[in-house]
């Protein structure tokens, strides 16, 4: 257990104490106690940032389940460090923000909120710092769980519960898929360690030919795509906006949804350089990018705009990672990876600040509906300033960091078209086009957010509260983030070799010394013209918004893909209902029918498989006329039983069957057996009659012909199979026979038991105990029946 292990576990340990803080210091907002933790962790992590020297990769091991090769092993490299800093840094700001956002009311369950939040923080740190796939999976699902608990924080709202369930089902399903992918990797490589897998693949280059390679890749990507809200799994993210805004800012824009990005980046050294990886990630990323940005146009809820914007930006980063994976073959694509990492940081800063701003607007005006808002510029000047920075950065305007990464994004897609691999030469022209169109829409929704909220007419009559500027506490966190937007925009190179380069080395381990220099002015190049076009066309879109909104293809405010989710769930329930109704009738006869049919099929198949149907009548004894008569009578009696309506008659016919069997024994010259059978049968019939005499009448039921037919087929089938088994078993003997067990009794009756009647000797001596107990059982049964009959009798009656 090292300090880094403790770093991951610290939030969980803290979570245990939160309820005590909550109960013990009810008057102090619980958030103040929590705040110290992420801040401390952040400061601790800062010391790992390399300044002027290469990053020291830290590895710490701790056994967990050694026999299955699972260890809680920490691996801290550039990529992990970047994410860990984001998690703790944004975490600090979000906790601070939440203290002012969620008021310490009497029945506000703050303890739950902070327990879930800390649980998330620890789990997320676990995801990015662990080297073992199983451990990553465990933490991964914990983040899903925490996320859905936080979405359902205000669970009395129906929409919160819907959103929580949806995010849970989608992300947990993705997580399961990812686990399956991990297992496949384990099967190929024999290790759960990511670094182990990377070096395994580096050593045996031919691994791409493995049959499991592609399934493993797809399953892992399923996990990444569901978590990072990639098309078509993005539908959970807009519904997750029911969570309190600090949660949306933290989980659903800055950190958790980037776990998928992390996973893809982490696995790039494993899968990168294959056409499947390149095309799947790039195309899903681009599709998400454009789908998200167009959908955002239709939204009227500020948070919904941000949600779709997040989806679209995640698509952007994903697409960059996909394009960048080509740099395993051609280093032209390296810039895409740099852009991805840089944009990841930028997105966290500007989107975080924007979420917080929207939270403030919601908090101070009581609504997030852009149709009700307007003219807040004068009323909330600080909020306005923060949001203009955030929005400009998101729109990709200079001098903010969003501009820089957007330019790099354009560079990335343009460079990618020059690639000469994976058929990019034929389809690559799509990349810049999609990127450009999506950017136009991005610019347009940025304008919507800005103008609809802050300019125009102030409409106090539509607002629930009288709007005024937010308290300073609520403003600190967005101010910090907005200043970062400006600082990173003006001095991007402070990140180049401290954060970006180490992170890049984790993604592209073979690039030893990348040149990263980020600056604003590149001259009049294609990227700049693309940006100018974006601004122009984006403005056009915004000005014609009404028309656009009427015609924007088929997209509604609610994503049409939701229909598949809702319909899928309904279909599942309906299907389940159908399966239930089909077999769970509650009727024994149906249960029997299913069992018998299954047995008939199984046994029939076995017959067929071994070609086992065999008849062998060689050593069959002669059948006398008596035997024929008895057998035929026996069959007739058996068949007639189901047709008899009257119960007493049926019992008597069953008795007849027994007596006929007794006759069979007579014919086979076994008089003692016949005698026993006769006696037993007589007792049975009498007991039966006595019993049934006192039971109520049978319910008369009439059945459809089809039902009767099915039953007939099943029973004939079962009979036929069993008969066949008997014949075939007989034939399989090939005339072999075991020594009959009677031989033992023939030899030993006199010497051991001193009796000459063998059957008697068996009954009273060799199997004496059996006989005694059998008699006992019969006696008990008879007593029971007498007791039952007595229950029914009136006073003074006698049997």
């Amino acid at each position: 257990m090292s300090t880094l292990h403790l770093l991951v576990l610290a939030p969980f340990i803290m979570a245990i104490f939160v309820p005590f803080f909550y109960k013990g210091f009810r008057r102090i907002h619980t958030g103040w106690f929590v705040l110290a933790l992420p801040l401390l962790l952040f400061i601790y992590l800062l010391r790992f940032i390399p300044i002027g020297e290469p990053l020291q990769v830290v590895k710490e091991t701790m056994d967990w389940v050694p026999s299955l090769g699972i260890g809680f092993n920490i691996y801290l490299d550039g990529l992990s460090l970047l994410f860990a800093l984001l998690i703790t840094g944004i975490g600090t700001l979000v906790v601070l923000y939440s203290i002012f956002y969620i008021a310490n009311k009497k029945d506000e369950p703050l303890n739950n909120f902070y327990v879930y939040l800390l649980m998330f923080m620890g789990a997320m740190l676990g995801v990015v710092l662990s080297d073992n796939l199983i451990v990553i999976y465990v933490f991964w699902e914990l983040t899903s769980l925490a996320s859905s608990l936080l979405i359902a924080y205000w669970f009395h709202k129906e929409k919160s519960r819907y959103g929580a369930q949806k995010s849970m089902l989608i992300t947990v399903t993705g997580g399961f898929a990812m686990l399956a992918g991990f297992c496949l990797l384990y099967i190929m490589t024999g290790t759960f360690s990511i670094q182990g897998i990377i070096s395994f693949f580096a050593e045996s280059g031919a691994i791409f030919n493995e049959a499991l390679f592609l399934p493993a890749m797809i399953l892992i990507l399923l996990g990444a795509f569901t978590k990072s809200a990639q098309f078509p799994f993005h539908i959970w993210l807009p519904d997750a906006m029911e969570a309190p805004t600090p949660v949306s800012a933290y989980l659903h824009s800055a950190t958790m949804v980037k776990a998928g990005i992390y996973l893809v980046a982490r696995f790039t050294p494993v899968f990168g350089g294959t056409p499947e990886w390149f095309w799947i990630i790039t195309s899903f990323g681009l599709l998400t990018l454009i789908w998200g940005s167009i959908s955002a146009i239709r939204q009227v809820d500020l948070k919904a705009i941000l949600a779709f914007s997040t989806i679209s930006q995640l698509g952007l980063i994903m697409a960059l990672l996909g394009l960048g994976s080509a740099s395993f073959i051609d280093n032209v694509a390296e810039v895409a990876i740099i852009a991805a990492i840089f944009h990841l940081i930028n997105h966290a800063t500007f989107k975080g600040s924007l979420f917080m701003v929207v939270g403030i607007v919601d908090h101070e005006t009581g609504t997030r509906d852009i149709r009700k808002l307007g003219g807040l510029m004068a009323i909330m000047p600080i909020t306005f300033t923060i949001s203009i920075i955030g929005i400009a950065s998101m729109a990709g305007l200079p001098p903010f960091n969003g501009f820089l990464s957007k330019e790099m994004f354009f560079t990335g897609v343009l460079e990618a078209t020059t690639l000469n691999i994976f058929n990019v030469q034929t389809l690559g022209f799509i990349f810049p086009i999609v990127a450009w169109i999506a950017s136009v829409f991005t610019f347009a929704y940025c304008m919507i957010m800005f103008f609809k909220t802050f300019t125009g007419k102030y409409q106090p009559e539509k607002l629930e509260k009288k709007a005024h500027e937010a308290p300073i506490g609520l403003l600190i966190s967005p101010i910090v983030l907005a200043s970062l937007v400006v600082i990173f925009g003006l001095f991007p190179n402070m990140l180049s070799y401290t954060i970006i380069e180490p992170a890049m080395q984790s993604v592209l381990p073979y690039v030893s010394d990348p040149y990263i220099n980020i600056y604003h002015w590149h001259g009049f190049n294609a990227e700049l013209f693309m940006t100018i076009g974006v601004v122009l066309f984006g403005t056009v879109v915004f000005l014609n918004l009404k028309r656009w909104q009427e015609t924007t293809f088929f997209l509604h405010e609610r994503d049409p893909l939701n229909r598949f989710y809702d319909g899928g769930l309904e279909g599942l329930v309906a299907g389940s209902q159908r399966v239930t109704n089909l077999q769970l009738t509650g009727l024994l006869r149906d249960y029997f029918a299913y069992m018998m049919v299954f047995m008939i099929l199984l046994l029939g198949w076995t017959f067929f498989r071994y070609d086992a149907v065999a008849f062998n009548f060689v050593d069959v004894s002669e059948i006398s006329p008596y035997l024929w008569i008895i057998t035929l009578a026996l069959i007739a009696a058996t068949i007639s039983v189901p047709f008899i309506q009257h119960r007493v008659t049926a019992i008597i016919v069953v008795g007849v069957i027994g007596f006929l069997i007794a006759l069979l024994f007579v014919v086979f010259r076994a008089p003692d057996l016949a005698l026993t059978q006769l006696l037993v049968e007589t007792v049975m019939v009498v007991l039966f009659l006595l019993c049934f005499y006192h039971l109520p009448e049978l319910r008369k039921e009439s059945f459809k012909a089809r039902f009767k037919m099915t039953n007939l087929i099943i029973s004939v089938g079962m009979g036929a199979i069993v008969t066949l088994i008997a014949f075939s078993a007989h034939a399989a003997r090939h005339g072999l026979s075991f020594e009959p067990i009677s031989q033992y009794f023939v030899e030993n009756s006199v010497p051991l038991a001193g009796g000459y009647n063998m059957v008697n000797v068996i009954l009273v001596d060799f199997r004496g105990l059996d006989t005694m107990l059998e008699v006992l059982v019969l006696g008990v049964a008879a007593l029971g029946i007498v007791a039952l009959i007595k229950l029914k009798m009136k006073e003074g009656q006698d049997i």
Partner: protein
Amino acid sequence: MSAYNANWSLMTPEIVLGILALVIFTIDFMTGVKGKKPFLGRMSIIALLVTAVLVYINRGAGTIADIFIVDHFSTMFKIILLVGVAIVIAISMHYLDKNDDVYQGEFYSLMLFAALGAMLMVSSADLITLYIGLELLSISSYCLAGFKKHNRKSTEGAIKYVVLGGTASAFILYGMSFLYGLTGTTSIIDISQVISSLYVDYPFIVVMSILFMLAGFGFKISIVPFHMWAPDVYEGSPTPVTAFLSVVSKIAGFAIVLRVFFTTFLGSEGVLYDEWTWIIAIIATVTMIVGNLIALTQKNIKRLMAYSGVAQAGYLLVPIAAIFIPSYSIGVIIFYSIVYVFMTLGAFAIITLVTEDSGRDDFSSFSGLYKRSPYMAIAMSVFLLGLAGLPLTAGFVGKAWIFISAAQAGMLWLAGVMFVTSVISFYYYFGVIKQMFMNEPNPNDVELKAPLSISVVVTIALAVTIILGVLPGLMIDWIAYIQW
């Protein structure tokens, strides 16, 4: 072989349990028919725990004349089963106090006889012993299922159980008779020595007997299509009996499936294994799909548990079907059995508490449980998440182990089915959790006070579920190295 020079001491635990059961039975007679008899419950728990300790002390390997065998396998299963029954009785004590129409003494002694039957089963090395143990367990279960005599559902369930169970026994006996006919012996060990050569001569008959026995055992462990009794019986039975059926009965069934199939039906070099492994794989697939799919729409918590139990049986079949390393599969199954016992019994303890409090056994009785008793609601969630196989619960470790070993063995499609159905199962477990946390309690449901016995059971089960989930190495490292 003679009865006098056999090593009867191997049977000490069974004999002790039998005697104690009879003692409790007798005390019951002496203390009147009706009335509350908590002391009998406590005595039963002590009897079971004493027996478990004896099993542990007596764990050395040995056999009695090839009909009774004591080895790691039987010792482990016996301890699991005895602890399981003890927990069930702890749950019942609360239940019986609430239901005056149940004769308490008989209930406890029947439970003990059932435990005895289960012990005999897992220790049997002979088909006849096995059958006697099985019937002792089954007949006790039939009686227990119908224990609420005046309740229609209970009676109906019990009758169905008897009829279908009888049929299953017939299947088993029919299958056994083929084996006896072929070999002239009923000893599992003797049969296993000649089965390979018999298979060469009479493949059809050997496979036929395997199939019949599989069908019969399949009924006891409620796998599709022999599962239909489960929901009806589970719903009708008194809740602790439902717990008993879904845990003890099932685990004991699995123990004999393992014993018979991995001892007798492997054949040399596993020639026979190839014959039935695919059948088990198919049954496992159908079981997982049907069990999970039907569980989706259940509104009654006991029926839900019945179907989730069917699905869990499907998961447990996977290692049998997928891995041709008996010792390894047994290890996996033993781990999952332990986990399953605690998760299920923990859940049933809470189900008993909640349904007896409200008098209903549909989901609505769980609504707002978090407000009424936070501890119970959280514990229940942990058990359900464990059954669903989410991380940090023992259920995850068990399932992941099964999953990994199936995938490793190359049965990817089986692992795939397991994966997809686990996702489905997540949906219905989550439904119950949602009910507990996100719905308001019914107006007349007040704060729920748990009696001591239930609290103890829940706490133990919770501790095991979480400890084995967080530190599975404690158990796995130990299980994985035993040669079962």
